[in-house]
């Protein structure tokens, strides 16, 4: 049975959402032999402002390269959550930062609320790796790409010298997701 | 020397009017090419639009007659992709500093290795005598029938301020000086500008009798009212009113575009 999996990564400019979109797409397409597209929409701001990056992963050709019916929405700001939650399909996954997104929508989907940014700053000492933590969570929950593929893709994309902390951030996200899955056995 | 070695004889007669200074400037260019012994196959002469810009049609080089004001951008592409080509642009005051003003200051800023000869006749001659960026304030043109309200550009000072490595001004009357400045420009790397004041009796002289009505009167005006830059530097602004400051404005040894870009290539190859 063929599948098409749609992921939107949203928040504000400068959070590195386009980068993790590219990493996720490369993990799927280059290392796991699937098809993937990555696209983004953006405003005039280089920092701040709304930012979104989309990844489609499929085992077939991908025609329309934008998301229509989201399987996963990552929202790192309240604004992004409010704006994009309507595109999440019933039963889809809403992953939010527990500090940034307090007002939760009430619909038929799973909400995973985790202290992503807090862990980035407190446990890893680097606000900037919140994106890679998110990536660890998403790939663990969705099981879309292999762990090896995502680690290779991270190392190939992040700035030289930051591979260590980014792999650590990936593992942090993976552990957060595994803990969440254990606490929510129905998933 | 035989000018006919460099001219396309079958394209004569040229379109320039009796008394026009452009032919005098063209002969200075040809004398200099001959003196330097440049191979005609390795010379590109490029122009925009206007009376001066008809020059390429008359000379036996690789010749390119481009769009209005854009000659320097075409020349930039030629020079970058074939650096051994001697790249000469001829332009008028309107072509170089009105519609082509942006290309002019940026070619100077980059110090692109191009020789620009500006035939400045203070008017749009070909289109019937409209005022140009070098028409002095108060002078008459078909679009300034009550006197030009605008202030003129000083082309040479503009080129100097924008970064050209060599800038000089001469007049059609002072052809020997023109030869000298063009030779200095041709021998020098970087963006080199020679501005030559060229009388336009048809479109300018007839309307502005103070500089003479016909060609020889306008040449006489150039002779009598030119002030060498060394002397002009010691004169007061009011003494310089209606005078033509001539001479070498700047002659500096600074890296041209290619010196910088060759470094870029070296750094790129190390990566």
């Amino acid at each position, binding site marked *: 049975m063929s599948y098409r999996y749609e992921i939107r990564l949203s928040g504000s400019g400068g959070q590195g959402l386009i980068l993790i979109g*590219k990493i996720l*797409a*490369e993990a799927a*397409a*280059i*290392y*796991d*032999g699937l*098809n*993937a*597209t*990555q*696209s983004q*929409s953006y*405003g*005039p701001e280089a920092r701040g402002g709304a930012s979104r990056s989309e990844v489609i992963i499929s085992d077939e050709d*991908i*025609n*329309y*390269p*934008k998301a*229509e019916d989201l399987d996963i929405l990552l929202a790192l700001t309240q604004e992004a959550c409010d704006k994009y939650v309507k595109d999440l399909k019933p039963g889809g996954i809403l992953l939010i930062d527990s500090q940034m997104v307090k007002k939760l929508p009430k619909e038929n989907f799973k909400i995973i609320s985790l202290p992503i940014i807090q862990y980035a700053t407190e446990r890893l000492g680097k606000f900037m790796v919140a994106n890679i933590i998110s990536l660890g969570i998403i790939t663990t929950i969705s099981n879309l790409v*292999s762990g090896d*593929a995502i680690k290779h893709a991270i190392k190939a994309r992040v700035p030289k010298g930051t591979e260590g902390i980014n792999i650590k951030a990936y593992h942090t996200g993976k552990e957060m997701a595994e803990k969440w899955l254990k606490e929510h056995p129905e998933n | 020397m035989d000018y006919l070695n460099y001219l396309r004889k079958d*394209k004569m007669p040229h379109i320039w009017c009796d008394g026009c200074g452009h032919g005098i400037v063209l002969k200075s260019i040809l004398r200099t090419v001959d003196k330097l012994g440049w191979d*005609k*196959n390795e010379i*590109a002469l*490029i122009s925009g639009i206007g009376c001066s810009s008809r020059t*390429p*049609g008359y000379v*036996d*080089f*690789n010749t*390119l*007659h*481009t*769009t209005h004001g*854009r000659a320097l*951008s*075409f020349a*930039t*592409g*030629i020079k*970058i*992709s*074939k650096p*051994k*080509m001697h790249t000469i642009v001829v332009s008028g005051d309107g072509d170089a500093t009105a519609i082509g003003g*942006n*290309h002019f*200051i*940026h070619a100077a800023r980059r110090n692109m290795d191009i020789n620009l000869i500006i035939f400045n006749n203070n008017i749009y001659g070909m289109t019937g005598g409209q005022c140009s960026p070098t028409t002095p304030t108060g002078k008459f043109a078909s679009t300034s029938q009550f006197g030009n309200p605008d202030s003129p550009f000083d082309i040479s000072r503009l080129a100097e301020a924008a970064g050209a490595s060599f800038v000089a001004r001469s007049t059609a009357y002072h052809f020997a000086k023109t030869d000298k400045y063009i030779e200095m420009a041709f021998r020098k790397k970087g963006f080199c500008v020679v501005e030559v004041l060229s009388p336009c009796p048809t479109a300018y002289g007839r309307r502005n009798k103070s500089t003479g009505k016909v060609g020889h009167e306008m040449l006489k005006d150039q002779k009598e009212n030119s002030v060498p830059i060394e002397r002009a530097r010691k004169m007061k602004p009011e003494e310089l009113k209606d005078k033509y400051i001539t001479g070498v404005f700047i002659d500096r040894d600074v890296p041209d575009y290619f010196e910088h*870009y060759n470094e*870029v*290539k070296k*750094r*790129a*190859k190390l*990566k």
Partner: protein
Amino acid sequence: MSQPNPKIKMMQGNVACAEGAIAAGCRFFAGYPITPSSEIAETMSLKLPALDGNFIQMEDEIGAMGAVIGSSLVGVKSLTATSGPGFSLKQENIGFAAIAEIPVVIINVQRGGPSTGLPTKPAQGDVMQSRWGTHGDHPAIVLCPSSVEECYFMTIRAFNLSEEYRTPVIVLSDEIIGHLTEKITIPHHSDIDIINRLKPQSDPENYLPYENTETYIPAMANFGEGYRYHVTGLVHDETGFPTNDSKKIEEQLTRLYNKIEKNHDKIIDVSEYFCDDMDTLIIAYGAVARSAKQSMLKARQEGHKVGLLKLNTIWPFPEKQIVKLCQNIKRIIVPEMNFGQLAHEIEWATRRAIPIIKYNKINGEPITPLDIYNILINRK
């Protein structure tokens, strides 16, 4: 995880245009920053210097167009890239390249217009501008990529066409394709066909740079090769010098027209999907062709007889290819991110014999498969 194939890359459409240009032999780029095309310039600035090529950021769009013409005239394949506002500015010198018959490639990554419009949003508003943007009757070849792979291969083809026909060629991309990252398999350079301009066989004394040959395409000498000829934007005769002789004017302008007109079959490129048994034909190009294909496949699964004609070249207009498909169909659907610029041509080509449903979106959002599907199944 599988072992990655080094030839397979995830690449952005704009980057693929730049890589395609380099593969085609382009060694000069002149441009001016403009969203959403800047990645093309950035990639060229990164790649060309190490290849002994040259990149220059010009002072404006007009200058960039002039510089690529100059560079091509000395024999170096040259590229510029822009978006709507810059494309408007380039028109003057695109006209020069057309009449002076200088091979150059211009990539226009379309964004919303008119004027400054929507810098970060997609549109297809420059369809007519890419045909008639510069003044006067002039030839036009316009290619429309709808994938990253097509960005790469169509840019190569654009260079080949420009060299073969001595004419400016436009790659009309859009913000969706330009900024889309997807898989591409990069071919070995020996697998890429490269066409170079025809060089003169005659000696310089007898060279006619604008000779009216049987193919309508005269041989081109590069500046510096000893031919010392004249190039002008004025209408000229076969020698290259300006003429006011009405017979010669007609001869040259007709040749300019014919060199494209008589070669339609070689230039035009379309892709047909499920066109054998259809009653509904979708005609689409660029990013919209992908949405059209997805909606067609869904409708097909549900038993609707839908076909798709994807236009890989939009100019010259594929009139013959469209008319051929119109024998047994009930309707044509033309989705476009403009108010129906190409639909108008299709109406003309089909003489309005078949109902044409236009679907037009001009709000900066892409046309989705659902948008087209709703029309296919007659749902409002």
